[in-house]
């Protein structure tokens, strides 16, 4: 089959993917604008005056008015949105009310730690999920399948912040093997790739990996089962292919959907890390969000959510394009 693939045909396929990519990018623009609008409006659904957080209790009316116009809160909403968006496009998300530092640099510094946690968790969760899913789907309705399915359903039903606590109880309190909180010895901010630092990553990463593990297992199990019940598998076996060869075909057919699910899960891990980062005091974007909420630091809250949501949109875009590139069956409509 592959030998008869003409050069012309391949070029046409590339052209298709390219057209799909550009259409998909155009489609993402209104989504990005709406996401920005939602983040902007978040500050305006908050009860009370956002200035309360910065104003000293005995502030004069004059000072209040001065700060109000400095933050731009005195202009009409659409104007405020326009100005805010214009500055955001130029990388200016305002200054944190609590620390006075630029929001963007605070967020970007924290996001690095969250990305590290998410990637470590993805390596654990996706590997186990793919393994369990393939085995469960291949040996459907046997005891192996039942065990793998039970692990998966427990994974998606676990309150992960509670799992984090239980792991701390077992491995930090009882066994004293791993640290309970933080991201390095002595609370220093510098990260290094040695065991002294990596041991801080173990428990948060395992905790984060549980939900994606469960979801990938369930998806891959269903995919494998569906593919194995199709006629072409029967034909491959009739042709005399060994089971390992048949398995290779199963993986090839399951790959695009599995990839899409894993991409989405990576996005959820990046954006939904607040609970786990709170449990482990992991200095990432989730912990930043937590402090922004409780210090009523609205520019920081707004900026963190905007950056995380944009990461998520971008990741979805990349996954869609990758999926279209490897799967010729995707309807490019």
């Amino acid at each position, binding site marked *: 089959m592959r030998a008869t693939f003409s050069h012309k045909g391949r070029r046409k396929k590339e052209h298709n993917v390219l057209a799909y990519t550009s259409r998909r990018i155009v489609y993402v623009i209104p989504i990005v604008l709406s*996401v920005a609008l939602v983040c902007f409006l*978040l500050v305006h659904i908050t009860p009370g005056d956002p200035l309360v957080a910065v104003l000293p209790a005995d502030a004069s009316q004059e000072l209040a008015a001065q700060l109000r116009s400095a933050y731009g809160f005195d202009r009409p909403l659409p104007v405020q949105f326009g100005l805010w968006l214009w500055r955001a496009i130029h990388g200016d998300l305002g200054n944190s009310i609590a620390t006075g530092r630029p929001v963007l640099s605070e967020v970007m510094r924290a996001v690095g730690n969250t990305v590290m946690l998410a990637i470590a968790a993805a390596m654990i969760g996706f590997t186990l999920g793919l393994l369990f899913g393939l085995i469960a789907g291949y040996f459907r309705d046997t005891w192996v399948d039942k065990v793998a399915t039970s692990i998966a359903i427990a994974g*998606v039903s676990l*309150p992960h912040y509670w799992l984090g606590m239980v792991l701390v109880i077992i491995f930090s309190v009882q066994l004293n093997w791993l640290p309970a909180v933080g991201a390095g010895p002595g609370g220093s901010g510098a990260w290094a790739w040695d065991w002294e630092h990596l041991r801080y990553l173990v428990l948060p990463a395992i905790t984060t990996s549980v939900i994606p593990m469960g979801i990938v297992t369930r998806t891959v199990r269903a995919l494998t089962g569906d593919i194995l019940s199709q006629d072409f598998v029967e034909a491959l076996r009739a042709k005399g292919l060994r089971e390992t060869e048949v398995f290779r075909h199963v993986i090839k057919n399951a790959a695009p959907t599995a990839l899409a699910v894993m991409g989405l899960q990576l996005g959820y891990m990046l*954006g939904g890390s*607040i609970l786990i980062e709170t449990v482990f005091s992991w200095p990432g974007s989730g912990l930043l*969000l937590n402090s922004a909420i409780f210090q009523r630091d609205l520019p920081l809250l707004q900026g963190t959510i905007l950056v*995380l949501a944009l990461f*998520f949109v971008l990741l979805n875009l990349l996954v869609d394009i990758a999926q279209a590139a490897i799967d010729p069956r995707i309807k490019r409509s």
Partner: protein
Amino acid sequence: MSAMSDTALQAAPASKARGYWATVARRIRRDKVSMACAVILLLIFASALLAPWLHLADPYQGSMIRRLRHIGTPGYPLGTDELGRDMLARLIYGGRLSLVIGILPVVLAFIIGTSLGLIAGYVGGKLNTAIMRTVDVFYAFPSVLLAIAISGALGAGITNSIVSLTIVFVPQITRVAESVTTGVRNMDFVEAARASGAGPFTIMRVHMLGNVLGPIFVYATGLISVSMILAAGLSFLGLGTKPPEPEWGLMLNTLRTAIYVNPWVAALPGAMIFAVSICFNLLSDGMRSAMDIRN
């Protein structure tokens, strides 16, 4: 042709004569896992509902001299918390608030999302585009982030946490409802109803609602599992209810300080969240396979 269908009818096994929903109910009753989950959930619901009549200790009454007793202490079967309050009583009373803030958002989102999805799927055209593109915007946020963003902006409180979770789930249910409705819309019986002069509202209510509700209901049951975890998670962060109210997520948070003294008592509230969450998940799976009559 008619003779053939007559013999087919007679040859059909007795079970085929039952209605669809009767068959589904029978299949669920035979599923041991689903029934076990239903029993566990019923017990948790009943004990939360009947808590004042169960002769429990006062869930608010603490004592400094009996703090953090271990599980199995006489008089305190599940120990006491960091303020010396009886854990068994607090776990049972805690179910009242935890179950309400976990389930109510899904119920509200079920009503709103089904209506929106039904309208979008049936009317189609520009209205469909408007509704579904708005839904897409919410899909651009990871659900945990969206829940915490709205809840964090609105401020702590039970009502705010219910509102934020409802906003998170409405788009998800709308999407399911819209896709199911679009599938049913072009079927012959809907066309027949339209040809016999039924108005759009009658068609949606009488002919379509019954056919789309099943799959949406199964999806929503699975969502309760997520909602329980998120609602308790908001309380865990301090965005839900306030102390001294017993609520599983908040209890988990305040007991965090106790993990070095009495770790297993500290872990109990999370076990309750896990139990409810996994039961709803398994029940949703059981219903899904029971409704898939083809197997």
